[in-house]
Protein backbone atom coordinates (compact mmCIF):
# COMPACT_ATOMS: atom_id res chain seq x y z
CA UNK A 1 0.00 0.00 0.00
CA UNK A 2 2.92 2.33 0.65
CA UNK A 3 3.83 2.26 -2.97
CA UNK A 4 0.35 3.09 -4.16
CA UNK A 5 0.36 5.88 -1.62
CA UNK A 6 3.34 7.69 -3.01
CA UNK A 7 2.41 7.19 -6.60
CA UNK A 8 -1.11 8.53 -6.36
CA UNK A 9 -0.24 11.34 -4.00
CA UNK A 10 2.09 12.66 -6.61
CA UNK A 11 -0.88 13.32 -8.84
CA UNK A 12 -1.91 16.21 -6.66
CA UNK A 13 0.13 19.01 -5.23
CA UNK A 14 -1.59 18.96 -1.88
CA UNK A 15 0.52 21.75 -0.44
CA UNK A 16 -0.56 24.08 -3.21
CA UNK A 17 -4.16 22.94 -2.97
CA UNK A 18 -4.25 23.53 0.76
CA UNK A 19 -2.97 27.05 0.23
CA UNK A 20 -6.10 27.70 -1.85
CA UNK A 21 -8.31 27.13 1.21
CA UNK A 22 -7.83 29.98 3.70
CA UNK A 23 -9.67 28.27 6.56
CA UNK A 24 -7.24 25.34 6.63
CA UNK A 25 -4.62 27.51 8.27
CA UNK A 26 -6.96 28.30 11.14
CA UNK A 27 -6.26 27.25 14.71
CA UNK A 28 -8.98 25.74 16.86
CA UNK A 29 -8.60 25.47 20.62
CA UNK A 30 -4.97 26.40 20.17
CA UNK A 31 -4.39 23.52 17.76
CA UNK A 32 -4.03 23.45 14.00
CA UNK A 33 -7.50 22.72 12.58
CA UNK A 34 -7.97 19.26 11.08
CA UNK A 35 -11.23 19.45 9.19
CA UNK A 36 -12.79 16.03 8.71
CA UNK A 37 -16.40 17.21 8.54
CA UNK A 38 -16.52 17.59 4.79
CA UNK A 39 -19.66 15.52 4.50
CA UNK A 40 -21.51 18.22 6.42
CA UNK A 41 -20.12 21.08 4.40
CA UNK A 42 -16.96 21.54 2.38
CA UNK A 43 -14.48 24.39 2.68
CA UNK A 44 -14.17 27.03 -0.04
CA UNK A 45 -11.19 27.79 -2.26
CA UNK A 46 -10.14 31.40 -2.57
CA UNK A 47 -11.35 31.51 -6.18
CA UNK A 48 -14.91 30.93 -4.98
CA UNK A 49 -14.59 33.51 -2.23
CA UNK A 50 -13.15 35.99 -4.73
CA UNK A 51 -15.94 35.38 -7.22
CA UNK A 52 -18.49 36.24 -4.55
CA UNK A 53 -16.48 39.25 -3.46
CA UNK A 54 -16.18 40.54 -7.01
CA UNK A 55 -19.86 40.03 -7.58
CA UNK A 56 -20.82 42.21 -4.63
CA UNK A 57 -18.11 44.79 -5.18
CA UNK A 58 -18.42 45.23 -8.88
CA UNK A 59 -21.29 43.41 -10.56
CA UNK A 60 -24.31 43.31 -8.26
CA UNK A 61 -27.64 43.90 -9.99
CA UNK A 62 -30.90 42.05 -10.37
CA UNK A 63 -31.05 39.79 -13.38
CA UNK A 64 -33.33 38.89 -16.24
CA UNK A 65 -35.51 41.96 -16.23
CA UNK A 66 -33.16 44.90 -16.45
CA UNK A 67 -32.17 46.78 -19.60
CA UNK A 68 -29.17 48.41 -17.97
CA UNK A 69 -25.61 47.22 -18.41
CA UNK A 70 -25.00 45.90 -14.90
CA UNK A 71 -28.15 43.84 -15.10
CA UNK A 72 -27.29 42.51 -18.54
CA UNK A 73 -23.74 41.64 -17.60
CA UNK A 74 -24.75 39.71 -14.54
CA UNK A 75 -27.59 38.00 -16.37
CA UNK A 76 -25.06 36.69 -18.84
CA UNK A 77 -22.72 35.66 -16.02
CA UNK A 78 -25.53 33.89 -14.17
CA UNK A 79 -26.63 32.05 -17.29
CA UNK A 80 -23.00 31.13 -17.97
CA UNK A 81 -22.91 29.66 -14.47
CA UNK A 82 -25.90 27.55 -15.43
CA UNK A 83 -24.05 26.40 -18.51
CA UNK A 84 -20.98 25.52 -16.43
CA UNK A 85 -23.19 23.27 -14.31
CA UNK A 86 -24.85 21.81 -17.38
CA UNK A 87 -21.50 20.89 -18.87
CA UNK A 88 -20.21 19.53 -15.59
CA UNK A 89 -23.16 17.14 -15.35
CA UNK A 90 -23.21 16.63 -19.11
CA UNK A 91 -26.86 17.62 -19.24
CA UNK A 92 -28.32 18.02 -22.69
CA UNK A 93 -29.68 21.55 -22.20
CA UNK A 94 -28.81 24.45 -19.94
CA UNK A 95 -32.49 24.89 -19.18
CA UNK A 96 -32.52 21.45 -17.58
CA UNK A 97 -30.52 23.00 -14.74
CA UNK A 98 -32.84 24.58 -12.17
CA UNK A 99 -31.24 26.65 -9.43
CA UNK A 100 -32.64 25.98 -5.96
CA UNK A 101 -31.48 26.85 -2.45
CA UNK A 102 -30.04 23.37 -1.82
CA UNK A 103 -30.59 19.63 -2.02
CA UNK A 104 -33.41 19.74 0.49
CA UNK A 105 -35.21 22.43 -1.50
CA UNK A 106 -34.64 20.48 -4.71
CA UNK A 107 -36.22 17.32 -3.29
CA UNK A 108 -39.12 19.30 -1.87
CA UNK A 109 -39.67 21.03 -5.19
CA UNK A 110 -39.66 17.76 -7.06
CA UNK A 111 -41.82 15.83 -4.60
CA UNK A 112 -44.40 18.58 -4.45
CA UNK A 113 -44.51 19.28 -8.15
CA UNK A 114 -44.41 15.62 -9.15
CA UNK A 115 -47.20 14.71 -6.75
CA UNK A 116 -49.65 17.25 -8.11
CA UNK A 117 -50.41 15.31 -11.26
CA UNK A 118 -48.69 11.99 -10.85
CA UNK A 119 -49.55 10.63 -7.43
CA UNK A 120 -52.95 9.23 -6.50
CA UNK A 121 -54.15 7.37 -3.42
CA UNK A 122 -52.68 3.88 -3.38
CA UNK A 123 -49.66 4.79 -5.50
CA UNK A 124 -46.21 3.82 -4.31
CA UNK A 125 -42.90 5.61 -3.97
CA UNK A 126 -39.62 3.81 -3.35
CA UNK A 127 -36.68 5.19 -1.40
CA UNK A 128 -33.90 3.36 0.42
CA UNK A 129 -33.02 2.58 4.00
CA UNK A 130 -29.91 4.75 3.84
CA UNK A 131 -31.53 8.03 2.78
CA UNK A 132 -30.83 11.36 4.40
CA UNK A 133 -33.88 12.89 6.11
CA UNK A 134 -34.02 15.37 3.24
CA UNK A 135 -34.77 12.50 0.89
CA UNK A 136 -37.20 10.83 3.29
CA UNK A 137 -39.43 13.50 4.75
CA UNK A 138 -40.66 15.15 1.54
CA UNK A 139 -41.78 11.76 0.22
CA UNK A 140 -43.16 10.66 3.56
CA UNK A 141 -45.14 13.86 3.86
CA UNK A 142 -46.60 13.58 0.40
CA UNK A 143 -47.47 9.92 0.96
CA UNK A 144 -49.43 11.00 4.01
CA UNK A 145 -51.19 13.75 2.12
CA UNK A 146 -52.00 11.62 -0.88
CA UNK A 147 -52.56 8.37 0.95
CA UNK A 148 -49.74 6.78 -1.00
CA UNK A 149 -47.30 4.15 0.21
CA UNK A 150 -43.60 4.67 0.95
CA UNK A 151 -41.54 1.54 0.29
CA UNK A 152 -37.98 1.11 1.50
CA UNK A 153 -35.14 -0.68 -0.29
CA UNK A 154 -33.43 -2.68 2.47
CA UNK A 155 -29.69 -2.78 2.98
CA UNK A 156 -27.22 -5.42 4.04
CA UNK A 157 -25.19 -5.23 7.25
CA UNK A 158 -22.31 -3.95 5.15
CA UNK A 159 -24.44 -1.05 4.09
CA UNK A 160 -25.20 -2.02 0.51
CA UNK A 161 -28.60 -1.83 -1.15
CA UNK A 162 -30.12 -5.27 -1.71
CA UNK A 163 -30.99 -5.05 -5.38
CA UNK A 164 -33.01 -8.27 -5.47
CA UNK A 165 -35.29 -6.89 -2.81
CA UNK A 166 -35.53 -3.62 -4.70
CA UNK A 167 -36.84 -5.39 -7.76
CA UNK A 168 -39.48 -7.11 -5.66
CA UNK A 169 -40.66 -3.76 -4.28
CA UNK A 170 -41.53 -2.44 -7.72
CA UNK A 171 -45.16 -2.79 -8.68
CA UNK A 172 -47.40 -1.27 -11.29
CA UNK A 173 -48.30 1.31 -8.64
CA UNK A 174 -44.72 2.55 -8.31
CA UNK A 175 -44.63 6.12 -9.55
CA UNK A 176 -41.14 7.32 -8.70
CA UNK A 177 -37.93 6.05 -7.12
CA UNK A 178 -35.66 8.38 -5.14
CA UNK A 179 -32.28 7.04 -4.03
CA UNK A 180 -29.07 8.51 -2.89
CA UNK A 181 -26.03 8.21 -5.12
CA UNK A 182 -23.70 8.04 -2.11
CA UNK A 183 -24.66 7.57 1.53
CA UNK A 184 -23.62 10.48 3.73
CA UNK A 185 -23.30 8.18 6.74
CA UNK A 186 -21.85 5.01 5.28
CA UNK A 187 -19.97 6.28 2.27
CA UNK A 188 -21.54 3.57 0.11
CA UNK A 189 -21.57 4.27 -3.62
CA UNK A 190 -24.85 2.85 -4.84
CA UNK A 191 -25.22 1.10 -8.21
CA UNK A 192 -27.53 3.80 -9.46
CA UNK A 193 -27.03 3.06 -13.12
CA UNK A 194 -28.40 -0.42 -12.52
CA UNK A 195 -31.26 0.93 -10.42
CA UNK A 196 -32.17 3.42 -13.13
CA UNK A 197 -32.07 0.73 -15.82
CA UNK A 198 -34.34 -1.54 -13.79
CA UNK A 199 -36.75 1.32 -13.09
CA UNK A 200 -36.81 2.44 -16.70
CA UNK A 201 -37.53 -1.07 -17.87
CA UNK A 202 -40.82 -0.56 -16.04
CA UNK A 203 -41.18 3.08 -17.10
CA UNK A 204 -40.61 4.52 -13.65
CA UNK A 205 -38.66 7.76 -13.30
CA UNK A 206 -35.74 7.98 -10.90
CA UNK A 207 -34.41 10.86 -8.83
CA UNK A 208 -30.85 10.63 -7.58
CA UNK A 209 -29.73 12.50 -4.45
CA UNK A 210 -26.23 13.50 -5.43
CA UNK A 211 -25.44 15.69 -2.40
CA UNK A 212 -22.54 13.44 -1.34
CA UNK A 213 -21.58 12.32 -4.83
CA UNK A 214 -20.69 15.51 -6.69
CA UNK A 215 -17.77 16.39 -4.37
CA UNK A 216 -16.17 12.99 -4.96
CA UNK A 217 -17.02 11.70 -8.41
CA UNK A 218 -17.78 12.82 -11.94
CA UNK A 219 -21.46 12.61 -12.81
CA UNK A 220 -22.84 12.21 -16.32
CA UNK A 221 -26.60 12.50 -16.20
CA UNK A 222 -27.03 11.42 -19.79
CA UNK A 223 -24.93 8.33 -19.32
CA UNK A 224 -26.77 7.50 -16.08
CA UNK A 225 -30.01 8.37 -17.83
CA UNK A 226 -31.50 9.54 -14.52
CA UNK A 227 -34.62 11.65 -14.74
CA UNK A 228 -33.67 13.98 -11.90
CA UNK A 229 -30.43 14.67 -10.07
CA UNK A 230 -30.12 17.00 -7.07
CA UNK A 231 -27.25 18.43 -5.05
CA UNK A 232 -26.10 21.36 -2.90
CA UNK A 233 -23.47 23.98 -3.65
CA UNK A 234 -22.04 24.14 -0.14
CA UNK A 235 -20.91 20.51 -0.17
CA UNK A 236 -19.26 21.04 -3.54
CA UNK A 237 -16.84 23.71 -2.26
CA UNK A 238 -19.34 26.40 -3.28
CA UNK A 239 -21.46 28.95 -1.42
CA UNK A 240 -24.28 28.28 1.02
CA UNK A 241 -27.87 28.78 -0.06
CA UNK A 242 -27.59 27.41 -3.57
CA UNK A 243 -28.40 24.02 -5.04
CA UNK A 244 -29.44 22.34 -8.23
CA UNK A 245 -32.30 20.30 -9.53
CA UNK A 246 -31.41 18.70 -12.83
CA UNK A 247 -34.39 17.29 -14.69
CA UNK A 248 -34.86 15.94 -18.16
CA UNK A 249 -36.46 18.56 -20.36
CA UNK A 250 -39.48 16.37 -21.02
CA UNK A 251 -40.12 16.00 -17.29
CA UNK A 252 -39.55 19.63 -16.39
CA UNK A 253 -41.90 20.71 -19.15
CA UNK A 254 -44.54 18.39 -17.85
CA UNK A 255 -44.32 19.26 -14.17
CA UNK A 256 -46.29 22.22 -12.80
CA UNK A 257 -44.40 25.11 -11.15
CA UNK A 258 -43.69 24.86 -7.42
CA UNK A 259 -42.99 28.26 -5.90
CA UNK A 260 -44.44 31.08 -7.98
CA UNK A 261 -43.85 34.82 -8.16
CA UNK A 262 -41.68 37.32 -9.98
CA UNK A 263 -39.83 35.78 -12.90
CA UNK A 264 -41.91 32.63 -13.28
CA UNK A 265 -44.46 34.08 -15.64
CA UNK A 266 -45.12 35.38 -19.10
CA UNK A 267 -48.32 37.24 -18.32
CA UNK A 268 -50.38 37.83 -15.22
CA UNK A 269 -53.87 39.08 -14.77
CA UNK A 270 -55.87 38.62 -11.62
CA UNK A 271 -57.85 35.99 -13.46
CA UNK A 272 -55.13 33.92 -15.04
CA UNK A 273 -51.42 33.45 -15.30
CA UNK A 274 -49.31 32.06 -18.12
CA UNK A 275 -46.08 30.50 -16.92
CA UNK A 276 -42.64 31.10 -18.39
CA UNK A 277 -40.44 28.61 -20.20
CA UNK A 278 -37.79 26.46 -18.55
CA UNK A 279 -35.97 26.98 -16.32
CA UNK A 280 -37.58 30.25 -15.19
CA UNK A 281 -40.88 28.50 -14.53
CA UNK A 282 -39.23 26.90 -11.49
CA UNK A 283 -37.19 29.89 -10.35
CA UNK A 284 -39.52 32.26 -8.56
CA UNK A 285 -38.20 35.52 -7.17
CA UNK A 286 -34.79 37.09 -7.24
CA UNK A 287 -32.34 34.19 -7.34
CA UNK A 288 -29.24 33.72 -5.21
CA UNK A 289 -27.09 35.35 -7.87
CA UNK A 290 -23.86 35.31 -5.86
CA UNK A 291 -24.61 31.65 -5.11
CA UNK A 292 -24.89 30.67 -8.76
CA UNK A 293 -21.72 32.55 -9.68
CA UNK A 294 -19.85 31.07 -6.73
CA UNK A 295 -21.00 27.54 -7.50
CA UNK A 296 -19.73 27.84 -11.07
CA UNK A 297 -16.38 29.07 -9.70
CA UNK A 298 -16.25 26.01 -7.44
CA UNK A 299 -16.89 23.69 -10.35
CA UNK A 300 -14.21 25.43 -12.39
CA UNK A 301 -11.85 24.95 -9.47
CA UNK A 302 -12.37 21.22 -9.08
CA UNK A 303 -12.15 20.78 -12.81
CA UNK A 304 -8.72 22.36 -12.90
CA UNK A 305 -7.66 19.66 -10.44
CA UNK A 306 -9.70 16.94 -12.08
CA UNK A 307 -12.29 14.70 -10.47
CA UNK A 308 -10.47 11.55 -11.50
CA UNK A 309 -7.37 12.57 -9.65
CA UNK A 310 -9.45 13.68 -6.71
CA UNK A 311 -11.24 10.34 -6.57
CA UNK A 312 -7.99 8.39 -6.77
CA UNK A 313 -6.35 10.43 -4.01
CA UNK A 314 -9.40 10.29 -1.76
CA UNK A 315 -9.61 6.54 -2.25
CA UNK A 316 -6.08 6.33 -1.01
CA UNK A 317 -7.00 8.38 2.07
CA UNK A 318 -9.95 6.08 2.65
CA UNK A 319 -7.81 2.94 2.56
CA UNK A 320 -5.15 4.51 4.72
CA UNK A 321 -7.57 5.65 7.40
CA UNK A 322 -9.64 2.48 7.32
CA UNK A 323 -6.52 0.47 7.81
CA UNK A 324 -5.38 2.49 10.82
CA UNK A 325 -8.80 2.71 12.45
CA UNK A 326 -9.44 -1.01 12.17
CA UNK A 327 -6.44 -1.64 14.37
CA UNK A 328 -7.98 0.24 17.28
CA UNK A 329 -9.39 -2.02 19.96
CA UNK A 330 -13.17 -1.93 20.24
CA UNK A 331 -13.59 0.32 17.21
CA UNK A 332 -16.19 -0.78 14.71
CA UNK A 333 -16.65 0.76 11.29
CA UNK A 334 -20.29 1.16 10.29
CA UNK A 335 -20.54 0.84 6.55
CA UNK A 336 -18.15 -1.56 4.90
CA UNK A 337 -19.45 -1.60 1.35
CA UNK A 338 -17.08 -2.64 -1.38
CA UNK A 339 -17.66 0.63 -3.20
CA UNK A 340 -17.08 3.57 -0.91
CA UNK A 341 -15.99 7.18 -0.94
CA UNK A 342 -13.80 8.76 1.71
CA UNK A 343 -16.42 8.77 4.46
CA UNK A 344 -15.89 6.61 7.54
CA UNK A 345 -18.48 6.17 10.26
CA UNK A 346 -17.51 4.28 13.37
CA UNK A 347 -18.37 3.60 16.97
CA UNK A 348 -16.17 2.61 19.88
CA UNK A 349 -17.56 -0.03 22.15
CA UNK A 350 -18.83 1.32 25.45
CA UNK A 351 -18.19 4.94 24.54
CA UNK A 352 -20.59 7.64 23.43
CA UNK A 353 -19.82 9.33 20.08
CA UNK A 354 -20.53 12.69 21.63
CA UNK A 355 -17.76 12.23 24.21
CA UNK A 356 -15.29 11.25 21.55
CA UNK A 357 -16.29 14.12 19.28
CA UNK A 358 -16.02 16.65 22.08
CA UNK A 359 -12.52 15.57 23.05
CA UNK A 360 -11.29 15.35 19.46
CA UNK A 361 -12.52 18.90 19.03
CA UNK A 362 -10.41 19.96 22.00
CA UNK A 363 -7.44 18.79 19.99
CA UNK A 364 -8.50 20.73 16.91
CA UNK A 365 -10.04 17.83 15.03
CA UNK A 366 -13.51 18.43 13.57
CA UNK A 367 -15.54 15.29 13.02
CA UNK A 368 -19.28 14.89 13.08
CA UNK A 369 -21.09 12.83 15.69
CA UNK A 370 -24.73 11.86 15.93
CA UNK A 371 -27.29 10.46 13.56
CA UNK A 372 -26.17 12.47 10.50
CA UNK A 373 -29.82 13.07 9.61
CA UNK A 374 -30.23 9.38 8.93
CA UNK A 375 -32.14 8.23 11.99
CA UNK A 376 -33.74 5.21 10.29
CA UNK A 377 -30.26 4.01 9.38
CA UNK A 378 -29.16 4.37 13.02
CA UNK A 379 -32.19 2.31 14.00
CA UNK A 380 -31.12 -0.33 11.51
CA UNK A 381 -27.66 -0.54 13.04
CA UNK A 382 -29.04 -0.24 16.56
CA UNK A 383 -26.78 2.67 17.50
CA UNK A 384 -27.74 6.12 18.79
CA UNK A 385 -25.17 7.67 16.49
CA UNK A 386 -21.70 7.32 15.07
CA UNK A 387 -18.53 9.33 14.74
CA UNK A 388 -18.01 10.28 11.13
CA UNK A 389 -14.76 11.37 9.56
CA UNK A 390 -15.17 12.50 5.95
CA UNK A 391 -12.17 13.50 3.88
CA UNK A 392 -11.80 15.92 1.01
CA UNK A 393 -8.91 16.20 -1.44
CA UNK A 394 -7.27 18.86 0.73
CA UNK A 395 -6.88 16.41 3.61
CA UNK A 396 -3.65 14.49 4.11
CA UNK A 397 -2.28 11.29 5.54
CA UNK A 398 -0.43 13.31 8.14
CA UNK A 399 -3.78 14.60 9.31
CA UNK A 400 -5.11 11.07 9.46
CA UNK A 401 -2.08 10.02 11.51
CA UNK A 402 -2.71 12.86 13.92
CA UNK A 403 -6.38 11.95 14.09
CA UNK A 404 -5.73 8.30 14.82
CA UNK A 405 -3.17 9.12 17.48
CA UNK A 406 -5.50 11.59 19.17
CA UNK A 407 -8.42 9.21 18.93
CA UNK A 408 -6.43 6.57 20.82
CA UNK A 409 -5.57 9.08 23.51
CA UNK A 410 -9.23 10.13 23.76
CA UNK A 411 -10.41 6.55 24.03
CA UNK A 412 -7.98 6.00 26.87
CA UNK A 413 -9.26 9.06 28.68
CA UNK A 414 -12.83 7.89 28.42
CA UNK A 415 -12.32 4.29 29.38
Amino acid at each position, binding site marked *: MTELKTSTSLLLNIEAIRADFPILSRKVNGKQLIYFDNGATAQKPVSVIDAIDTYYKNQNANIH*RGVHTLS*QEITVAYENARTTIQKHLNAKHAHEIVFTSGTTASVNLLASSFAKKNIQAGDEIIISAMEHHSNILPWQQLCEEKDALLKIIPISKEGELIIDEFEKLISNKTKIIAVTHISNTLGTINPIKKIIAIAHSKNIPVMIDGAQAVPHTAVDVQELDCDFYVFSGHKLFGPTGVGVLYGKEKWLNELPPYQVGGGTIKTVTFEKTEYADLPLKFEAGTPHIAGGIGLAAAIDYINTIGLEKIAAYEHELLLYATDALQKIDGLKIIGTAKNKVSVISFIVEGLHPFDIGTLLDQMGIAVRTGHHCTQPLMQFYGVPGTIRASFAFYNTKQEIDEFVKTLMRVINMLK
Partner: protein
Amino acid sequence: MTIEEIENEIVEEFEMFEDWMQRYEHLIDLGKSMPMIEEKNKTEDKLIKGCQSQVWMHSELKDGKIVYTADSDAIITKGMVALMIRVLSNHTPQEIIDSKLDFIEKIGLTKHLSPTRSNGLLSMIKQMKLDAIAYAAKS
Protein backbone atom coordinates in the same frame (compact mmCIF):
# COMPACT_ATOMS: atom_id res chain seq x y z
CA MET B 1 -25.58 42.83 -53.16
CA THR B 2 -25.03 39.61 -51.30
CA ILE B 3 -25.94 39.34 -47.65
CA GLU B 4 -22.28 39.52 -46.77
CA GLU B 5 -21.76 42.66 -48.80
CA ILE B 6 -24.63 44.36 -47.02
CA GLU B 7 -23.25 43.23 -43.71
CA ASN B 8 -19.89 44.78 -44.53
CA GLU B 9 -21.57 47.97 -45.59
CA ILE B 10 -23.31 48.18 -42.25
CA VAL B 11 -20.12 47.44 -40.35
CA GLU B 12 -18.40 50.32 -42.18
CA GLU B 13 -21.33 52.57 -41.48
CA PHE B 14 -21.19 51.82 -37.77
CA GLU B 15 -17.43 52.24 -37.60
CA MET B 16 -17.85 55.86 -38.53
CA PHE B 17 -19.60 56.63 -35.29
CA GLU B 18 -17.55 57.69 -32.36
CA ASP B 19 -19.67 56.33 -29.55
CA TRP B 20 -22.69 54.20 -28.92
CA MET B 21 -24.90 57.17 -28.42
CA GLN B 22 -24.35 58.05 -32.08
CA ARG B 23 -24.93 54.47 -33.09
CA TYR B 24 -28.22 54.51 -31.26
CA GLU B 25 -29.12 57.73 -33.03
CA HIS B 26 -28.49 55.93 -36.29
CA LEU B 27 -30.57 52.94 -35.17
CA ILE B 28 -33.38 55.30 -34.27
CA ASP B 29 -33.22 56.89 -37.73
CA LEU B 30 -33.26 53.46 -39.33
CA GLY B 31 -36.23 52.53 -37.18
CA LYS B 32 -38.13 55.58 -38.25
CA SER B 33 -37.59 54.86 -41.96
CA MET B 34 -38.26 51.13 -41.89
CA PRO B 35 -40.52 49.41 -44.43
CA MET B 36 -43.60 49.02 -42.28
CA ILE B 37 -45.73 45.95 -41.94
CA GLU B 38 -49.30 46.40 -43.16
CA GLU B 39 -51.79 46.82 -40.33
CA LYS B 40 -53.70 43.74 -41.44
CA ASN B 41 -50.57 41.65 -40.90
CA LYS B 42 -50.09 42.77 -37.30
CA THR B 43 -51.72 39.63 -36.00
CA GLU B 44 -51.02 37.55 -32.91
CA ASP B 45 -49.16 34.88 -34.91
CA LYS B 46 -46.76 37.47 -36.33
CA LEU B 47 -45.94 38.72 -32.86
CA ILE B 48 -42.56 38.09 -31.27
CA LYS B 49 -42.98 38.92 -27.62
CA GLY B 50 -40.10 40.23 -25.61
CA CYS B 51 -40.28 41.10 -21.98
CA GLN B 52 -39.88 44.79 -22.77
CA SER B 53 -40.92 45.37 -26.33
CA GLN B 54 -42.62 43.44 -29.07
CA VAL B 55 -42.07 42.91 -32.73
CA TRP B 56 -44.45 42.03 -35.52
CA MET B 57 -42.67 40.34 -38.37
CA HIS B 58 -44.24 39.42 -41.72
CA SER B 59 -42.62 37.73 -44.69
CA GLU B 60 -43.68 37.15 -48.28
CA LEU B 61 -42.08 35.32 -51.13
CA LYS B 62 -41.65 37.49 -54.25
CA ASP B 63 -39.85 36.06 -57.28
CA GLY B 64 -38.14 33.44 -55.18
CA LYS B 65 -36.92 36.01 -52.69
CA ILE B 66 -38.23 36.75 -49.22
CA VAL B 67 -39.43 40.23 -48.41
CA TYR B 68 -39.77 41.06 -44.76
CA THR B 69 -41.84 43.83 -43.26
CA ALA B 70 -42.08 44.54 -39.55
CA ASP B 71 -42.98 46.87 -36.75
CA SER B 72 -42.18 47.28 -33.08
CA ASP B 73 -43.55 49.37 -30.24
CA ALA B 74 -40.04 50.48 -29.30
CA ILE B 75 -38.00 52.55 -31.72
CA ILE B 76 -34.59 51.08 -30.90
CA THR B 77 -35.97 47.62 -31.39
CA LYS B 78 -37.42 48.86 -34.64
CA GLY B 79 -33.99 50.06 -35.66
CA MET B 80 -32.54 46.65 -35.04
CA VAL B 81 -35.34 45.03 -36.99
CA ALA B 82 -34.65 47.48 -39.79
CA LEU B 83 -31.00 46.41 -39.84
CA MET B 84 -31.99 42.79 -40.00
CA ILE B 85 -34.43 43.44 -42.81
CA ARG B 86 -31.87 45.42 -44.75
CA VAL B 87 -29.51 42.47 -44.50
CA LEU B 88 -31.89 39.61 -45.14
CA SER B 89 -34.79 40.95 -47.18
CA ASN B 90 -34.74 40.32 -50.93
CA HIS B 91 -32.65 37.21 -50.70
CA THR B 92 -33.52 33.62 -51.41
CA PRO B 93 -34.59 31.35 -48.58
CA GLN B 94 -31.36 29.37 -48.92
CA GLU B 95 -29.18 32.48 -48.73
CA ILE B 96 -31.03 33.54 -45.59
CA ILE B 97 -30.68 30.11 -44.02
CA ASP B 98 -26.95 30.10 -44.72
CA SER B 99 -26.30 33.62 -43.47
CA LYS B 100 -23.88 33.89 -40.57
CA LEU B 101 -24.78 37.42 -39.55
CA ASP B 102 -21.30 38.14 -38.24
CA PHE B 103 -22.00 41.86 -38.47
CA ILE B 104 -24.02 41.68 -35.26
CA GLU B 105 -20.92 40.72 -33.37
CA LYS B 106 -18.80 43.20 -35.29
CA ILE B 107 -20.94 46.23 -34.61
CA GLY B 108 -21.23 45.27 -30.95
CA LEU B 109 -24.86 44.36 -30.93
CA THR B 110 -24.08 41.04 -29.25
CA LYS B 111 -24.84 42.41 -25.86
CA HIS B 112 -28.42 42.52 -27.07
CA LEU B 113 -28.19 38.87 -27.89
CA SER B 114 -28.04 37.40 -24.39
CA PRO B 115 -30.59 34.62 -23.99
CA THR B 116 -32.63 36.63 -21.56
CA ARG B 117 -32.21 39.96 -23.26
CA SER B 118 -35.50 41.71 -23.13
CA ASN B 119 -35.90 42.73 -26.74
CA GLY B 120 -35.23 39.30 -28.03
CA LEU B 121 -33.09 40.11 -31.08
CA LEU B 122 -32.31 36.44 -30.96
CA SER B 123 -35.95 35.40 -31.22
CA MET B 124 -36.31 37.82 -34.10
CA ILE B 125 -33.46 36.25 -36.08
CA LYS B 126 -34.79 32.83 -35.21
CA GLN B 127 -38.21 33.77 -36.58
CA MET B 128 -36.74 35.19 -39.79
CA LYS B 129 -34.74 32.04 -40.37
CA LEU B 130 -37.68 29.82 -39.55
CA ASP B 131 -39.72 31.63 -42.19
CA ALA B 132 -36.93 31.02 -44.68
CA ILE B 133 -36.81 27.35 -43.80
CA ALA B 134 -40.56 27.12 -44.30
CA TYR B 135 -40.34 28.72 -47.76
CA ALA B 136 -37.38 26.54 -48.69
CA ALA B 137 -39.33 23.44 -47.74
CA LYS B 138 -42.30 24.51 -49.85
CA SER B 139 -40.28 25.17 -53.00
